[in-house]
């Protein structure tokens, strides 16, 4: 491991952290004896949650609301998918069908995919991973959740009563003149949710810059932080443009000045430019946090340091930067100049480079690793496959000539679902499983976890692989009906969606179950490195009892040692490094599941 991978000496030390006493009675008004055990028990009433400034509690608030949004968007998707089982379905009227796919897109993009990982796992983990007590602006963090909720409620109300049939892109002049329903209200909802996202991003940037623990240099940061930082940069630079675009669109919808109306001199392509100046970087807002999670999972369950740390770290920044130069590939057939199209096409290919660096480095990390197929790892491996397919099909859409044929077909749908759902949602679920013991202090049933992960992957491929073929064969997106020859593939897709839905519903059930009946997790059930595992599970309100001092880089795993220790663990019944407590927690989970008993 030369200069690319930091610190070969990582392997010499088993502990990442030197806990150091500071010469202080770290005590405010609360006497030490009355300090609550952890952040969950520190205040129990609803007020202690709704007015909390604790980043971990805000993460939980976000987790609940984002899951609600996912349910709503999922139901809309299910209706759309069932409607497409037959060429001329009468399940939904065409008008309702349009409203359904619009609701699905709007809810999933603005209220689920954008906040999902940053606002939940990111909120929870960023301060923990950098050894801080909280984010730099806790009040702004809470404000961002309230803004999200206001946006979500406005959006959901508008979509429930009246709905919109514009699709999530709000293209003019459809959205400004011809669309039915509450376009204006939905715009307001998305506008407000945008500010929530901006505040989260801003908070992360400042936190990462200014609140790292002593000794935690930039190149000792976990890759999770690097990706989250890159995400936050995109949020800060792109989301405000969405805000002003939606505002202009709102004015146009309400007053019809003509700014996007060619009849009155405006240019509808301007809207598309401004919209995609946000929305293309926004797909990296959605998927970069997925990369963040995967880097943590792969290293932990391959028991190896990441291959090429600096490459992976800088590829996140590179993706963030390049993402701003490629939006024109959404406008290839929209009347954009052919020359601009060529430039955007070439630049779009560029973004494949840092993305591929990540995938190659993850697979290289697996090489000669001591791989454990725990649930998070199943999600992570699934992610690599799904994201690779999604990414590679993106190249077809980035190439100008192919896109003319594939534009607005199911090929596009399949492509971005592979990236957004196969990528982001897999990573999110993998991350939730990985950090669930840290967040709740409980283990989930491992068998159910793996089952759900496998189901999800199977269901996903069955749902979206046929859509690639449908798209190439020319089935257009956004229509309630289609030519009869497309029916077999559509039936496959709907069948897959059913399996996929099961794959999403299962974790909901057993994760909730584990809150009460799951085995008690120790501070570090995965024997992972990283500061978040150095504190108790669940963490105390201010995260660390002592300020951690970091002396080495992340991912201090050693696969050979791990194999030896694993064998010892098998022989002795407990892991030599943790005195048995952690393994006990893990084995009792398995027993509990096998015997249907509850522990703790």
């Amino acid at each position, binding site marked *: 491991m030369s200069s690319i991978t930091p610190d070969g000496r990582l392997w010499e030390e088993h502990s990442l952290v030197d806990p150091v006493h500071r010469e202080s009675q770290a005590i405010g008004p609360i006497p030490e004896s009355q300090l609550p055990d952890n952040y969950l028990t520190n205040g129990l009433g609803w007020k202690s949650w709704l007015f909390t400034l604790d980043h971990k509690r805000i993460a939980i608030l976000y987790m609940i609301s984002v899951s609600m949004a996912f349910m709503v968007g999922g139901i809309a998707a299910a209706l759309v998918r069932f409607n497409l089982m037959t060429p001329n379905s009468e399940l939904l009227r065409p008008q309702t069908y349009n409203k359904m796919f619009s609701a699905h897109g709007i809810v999933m993009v603005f209220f689920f995919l954008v906040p999902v990982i940053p606002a939940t796992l990111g909120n929870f983990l960023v301060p923990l991973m950098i050894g801080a007590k909280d984010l730099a602006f806790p009040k702004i963090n809470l404000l961002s959740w309230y803004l999200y909720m206001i946006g979500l409620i406005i959006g959901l109300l508008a979509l429930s009563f009246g709905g919109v049939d514009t699709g999530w892109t709000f293209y003019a002049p459809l959205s400004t003149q011809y669309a039915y329903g509450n376009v204006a209200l939905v715009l307001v909802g998305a506008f407000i949710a945008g500010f929530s996202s901006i505040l989260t991003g801003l908070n992360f940037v400042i936190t990462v810059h200014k609140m790292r623990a002593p000794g935690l*240099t930039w190149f000792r940061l976990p890759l999770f932080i690097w990706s989250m930082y890159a995400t936050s940069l995109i949020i800060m630079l792109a989301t405000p443009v969405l805000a002003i675009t939606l505002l202009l669109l709102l004015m146009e919808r309400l007053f019809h000045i003509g700014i996007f109306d060619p009849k009155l001199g405006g240019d509808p392509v301007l809207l598309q430019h401004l919209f995609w100046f946000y929305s293309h970087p926004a797909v990296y807002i959605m998927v970069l946090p997925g990369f963040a999670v995967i880097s943590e999972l792969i290293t932990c369950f391959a028991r190896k340091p990441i291959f090429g740390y600096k490459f992976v770290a800088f590829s996140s920044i590179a993706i963030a930067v390049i993402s701003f130069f490629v939006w024109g590939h959404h406008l290839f057939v929209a009347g954009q*100049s052919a*020359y601009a199209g060529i*430039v955007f096409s070439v630049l779009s290919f560029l973004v494949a480079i840092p993305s591929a660096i990540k995938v190659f480095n993850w697979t290289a990390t697996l090489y000669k690793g001591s791989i454990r197929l725990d649930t998070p790892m199943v999600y992570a491996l699934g992610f690599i496959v799904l994201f690779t397919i999604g990414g590679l099909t993106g190249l077809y859409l980035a190439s100008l000539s192919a896109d003319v044929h594939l534009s607005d077909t199911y090929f596009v749908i399949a492509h971005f679902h592979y990236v957004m759902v196969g990528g982001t949602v897999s990573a999110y679920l993998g991350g939730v499983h990985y950090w669930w013991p840290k967040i709740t202090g409980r283990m989930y049933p491992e068998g159910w976890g793996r089952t759900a992960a496998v189901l999800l992957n199977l269901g996903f491929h069955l749902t979206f692989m046929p859509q690639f073929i449908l798209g190439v064969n020319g089935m257009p997106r956004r229509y309630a009906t289609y030519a009869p020859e497309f029916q077999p593939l559509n039936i496959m897709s709907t069948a897959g969606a059913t399996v996929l839905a099961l794959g999403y519903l299962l974790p909901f059930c057993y994760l909730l179950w584990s809150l009460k009946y799951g085995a008690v997790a120790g501070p570090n059930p995965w024997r992972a490195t990283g500061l978040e595992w150095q504190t108790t599970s669940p963490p105390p309100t201010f995260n660390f009892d002592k300020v951690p001092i970091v002396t080495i880089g992340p991912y201090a795993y050693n696969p050979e040692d791990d194999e030896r220790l694993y064998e010892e663990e098998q022989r002795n019944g407990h892991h030599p490094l943790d005195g048995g407590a952690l393994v006990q927690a893990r084995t009792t989970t398995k027993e509990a599941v096998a015997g249907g008993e509850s522990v703790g």
Partner: protein
Amino acid sequence: MAQGVPVTEINEEIAHDVHGGRHIVPVSVYLKVFTALMVLLVITLAAAAIDMSKPPFNMPSLNIIIAMTIAVAKAVLIVLYFMEVRYSSRITWLFSIAGFAWLSIMFAFIFSDYVSRGWLPQAPR
């Protein structure tokens, strides 16, 4: 930051110089900058009064170029002295430039579309 965030040694030094020393800008600097801003305001008006599209200039876009140059100069003065970026750490420099730099990306790339739309000969309709 007691233990500090040693991004680089240099960064630490700057940060210390700025905040440890608590740089206080003398009032005379503020007054000078304000005077300069006033002068620039007068120049803006004077330049606008001349129609550069007519002889002897014959450059229709010169008016807007001058106006924008002066506006940028004003903005730079305000950012450097009133917002004290001149006396701030490198990271503040970076943040103060970032927004404008990114905005120029947006301008450049969207305009690349509008500017080149006429380049390709149109097929007769």
